């Protein structure tokens, strides 16, 4: 008969109830990490700097995306130095002071963010586009960063 336990049996001498609870907590932490993908690197909000970015890649490009509703492409300043991409600008939200606000959740202000890319890029052919408030920066990989198929002879 197979018995599936929520946590490993603590018969190996947990001295008191607190120790047992601690073991249980650590086990559950590990379990939730393995089930939900947990705090694996690269998820969540590690930078804590506006704007939040998503970085993806395909064979030939890196793609950096950010949600910047209300900004036009020409209001953004996008620079590439080496492997670092800088996105900066200012989000202007006109708030009328003479009216009664029910909700005021949209934030304005300036921002600047640098993201380091994992590989070399071809800085001359970087393109940026803004569609419906989503910025997409397309960065072609330098030849050296592209995956190379190696044929076994």
């Amino acid at each position, binding site marked *: 008969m197979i018995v599936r336990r929520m946590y490993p049996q603590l018969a190996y001498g947990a001295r008191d109830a607190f120790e047992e609870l601690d073991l249980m907590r650590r086990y559950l932490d590990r379990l939730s990490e393995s089930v939900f993908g947990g705090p694996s690197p690269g998820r969540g909000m590690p930078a804590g700097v506006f704007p939040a970015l998503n970085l*993806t890649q*395909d064979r030939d490009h890196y*793609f950096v995306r950010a949600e910047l509703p*209300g900004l036009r492409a020409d209001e953004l300043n996008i620079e590439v130095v080496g492997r670092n991409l800088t996105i900066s600008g200012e989000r202007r939200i006109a708030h009328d002071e003479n009216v009664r606000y029910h909700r005021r959740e949209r934030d304005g202000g300036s921002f600047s963010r640098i993201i380091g890319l994992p590989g070399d890029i071809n800085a001359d052919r970087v393109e940026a586009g803004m569609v419906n408030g989503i910025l997409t920066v397309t960065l072609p990989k330098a030849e050296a960063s592209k995956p190379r198929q190696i044929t076994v002879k």
Partner: protein
Amino acid sequence: MSDSKEIQVKGKQELATPAEQTKSGPVFVPAVDIYETETAIVMTADLPGVAPEDIQIDLRDDVLTLSGDVRPFEGPEEDDILVEFEVGRYYRQFTLTEAIDQERIQASHRDGVLHLNLPKQAKALPRRITVSAA
């Protein structure tokens, strides 16, 4: 000046009770500004990634429902390296206390921001009702 301050990063707020959602995937609450003037209620909502034709605005009785579908904008060949924001539908409901003139509602959309003008209904004018003999 509030304009020169730095924007703080805020995680997208996920809808707490996604009731009656028929599509799978996360649902987010869009950030809105709502203000009221003498004649109208004006609402501005951030809906990044939603095309104008995918925004649904529905006013039924006193409840205004705002929803927007985000079409996937990533290519099929792309692998994630860093994920700081998730993408999903937007959904939010408001209960309006003022009667709104539905005929004159105006909506515009630009760069992922929806602007909604909800004119208040003119006060019902006093009318004399004549009873006609049948």
